[in-house]
């Protein structure tokens, strides 16, 4: 990737330093040790089972259906959800986990578009026409009922966004208490000198809006319904 450009920086930042009444700070600034760090006390000693309970409870608040499956049951459960949605065409990530979780034959169906396989690289258009998008969750946050997607390459951000419905496949091994655990991981990756994925999504259920009289309407620009399938991989 070619390096980008920056304009007007020096005068802009010099002015800030001047207004703050000191010289420019160019190095050795570190966040302090904050006096309170309540985020680390939340669900700190919860078992996976307890975290799953919290997740399920939260999903009722965010209008998200939860199904549970063993690896063997997974293809049938996905089918059930698709039937409920009346969905035929699906868009999925190009992700090795589909094979690992026994979904190889599911992926070979004709009505499924694997991200990156569309002719003329027109995956956005095909995904937009799909009824349902299916992705794995990279991390799952119990507290907020959130799936975290580290997009990039075969993991197109469109898949969880453009189709009418969304299904997240959640291996139980991905569940953590809250956002803090994931942002810490990202932070550690940055510190190790790795580039952050160009798009990270924290998705908590279907899209919604309360812009009309503060009435909640589920289903706006993103998926109008969402299902999480919890997969026992432990």
């Amino acid at each position, binding site marked *: 990737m070619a390096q980008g450009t920056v304009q007007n920086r020096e005068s802009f930042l010099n002015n800030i330093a001047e207004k703050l009444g000191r010289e420019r700070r160019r190095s050795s600034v570190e966040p302090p040790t904050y006096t309170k760090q309540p985020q680390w006390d939340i669900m700190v000693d919860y078992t996976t089972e307890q975290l799953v309970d919290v997740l399920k409870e939260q999903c009722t608040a965010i209008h998200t259906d939860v199904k549970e499956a063993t690896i063997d049951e997974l293809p049938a459960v996905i089918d059930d959800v698709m039937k409920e949605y009346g969905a035929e065409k699906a868009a999925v990530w190009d992700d090795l986990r589909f094979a690992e979780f026994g979904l190889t034959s599911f992926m070979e169906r004709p009505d499924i578009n694997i991200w990156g396989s569309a002719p003329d690289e027109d995956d956005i258009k095909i995904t937009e026409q799909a009824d349902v998008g299916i992705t794995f969750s990279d991390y799952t946050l119990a507290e907020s009922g959130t799936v975290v997607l580290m997009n990039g390459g075969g993991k197109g951000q469109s898949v969880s966004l453009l189709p009418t419905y969304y299904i997240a496949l959640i291996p139980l091994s991905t569940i953590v208490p809250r956002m803090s655990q994931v942002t810490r991981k*990202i932070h550690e990756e940055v510190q190790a000198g790795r580039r952050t994925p160009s798009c990270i999504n924290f998705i908590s259920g279907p899209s919604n809006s309360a812009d009309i009289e503060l009435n909640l309407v589920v289903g706006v620009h993103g998926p109008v319904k969402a299902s999480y399938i919890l997969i026992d991989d432990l």
Partner: protein
Amino acid sequence: MPMKIGDHSFDQRVSKGLGETHMRETVRSAQGRLHTNKSKAEEDLGNWEDWRTLSEEIRSHTLENLDYYLEQLSDNVIKNGGHVFFAETAEEANQYVKEVAVKKEAKKIIKSKSMVTEEISMNEALERAGAEVIESDLGEYILQIDDHDPPSHIVAPALHKNKEQIRETFERLKGYDKTSKPEELTQFAREQLRQEFLEADIGITGCNFAVAESGSVSLVTNEGNARLATTIPKTQISVMGMERIVPTWEELDVMVSMLCRSAVGQKLTSYVTGLSGPREEGDLDGPEEFHLVIVDNGRSNILGTAFQSALHCIRCAACINVCPVYRHVGGHSYGSIYPGPIGAVLSPLLEGYDDHKDLPYASSLCAACTDACPVKIPLHEHLIEHRRIIAEEEKKTTRGETYAMKGFSVTSSSPRLFDMATRAAPIMSSPFTKEGTIDKGPGPLKGWTDVRSFPAPEKERFRDWFKSRKKEDS
């Protein structure tokens, strides 16, 4: 539109606001619901005061080192292959965005919600350059098609409209033929806007928090429009107020947790998205070109002043949602795109007192705002500080008020004068007194007695009673 809305005086705007029954009903019920939701969110989280302390520490550390973190941010954006433009003024920001639009030969630009682009009137600038600019946030979309009605709330911009008014707008201007059910109205907007997303050449977003350590921009939304605007168009421009930044992803966690809870009582909104530069090699969606515009537009003048903590604001609107004045007058009465307590603090700082000198007085100083603020901005104290500047430095108060306050202070710092004044009070007020109350007060009392009775001073003051009692005792 600039920050300032319309040309009416403050009193005219308030009187119009007080007369808008629909708006007031909607706001009243919205405040009720938001109060319940936020209280529940605080309770669910636990240790709310610790979270506020942490948030305040994060914001204050970041602002104290703003030059450092902005430099780090911009270094990382360019490392990721993005472009950064530092804009000291609204004009510079708009000029840059216009140039990008021209270079990209953009016909259609899709926008997700951004207060800073409202503040600098970016849409008008782009439209003048010949591009079609489409707001995609449902609330902003409603306002845009209704002849650019200004927002009245920083999170729910169309809060002043009820569903029937929205239905009527959709019908009149977009050929809508269904009912005023929010579900149907929303579905209609989804259909109208989906095509626009697919055709847009540029997506423009705001930025809830930039993350310095990785050169990222985070967007906190529910509708999914910000995701669409950053997934489909080939070019993405994000515009941020220069203070909207955190050092690392760890601080992002805290600020997003507080923002979602304080704004709408959600644990997280449906979508929290972290975007780090343009698409990477091998990616098939996301923008090919990424621009970050960092806007000052008067903010740096707040640094190093008594108002610096106003820049800690994370635009959650919690202060607006608890404000009893906003509750009755609505957002447009403030005459600024930033209404409510934070608007009354920020608008005069960003645009000066000439247009906004009434705002610091539009508060009973009940401190509900200060109490609600997730980053502990002492909002009501800032309002008092504005009043101090207006009275003592700008000398913009009326002569009557100045004399009254001088007189009051002289009296209350002199026991002799205070004694005389309070002793004389029953005599002075007797011409206005009827059955122990004053119904038509003179001078400054008029405002009071226009709507309330005023008690007549008692013949025997407490101090007289106390003195005579002491005598009796001895």
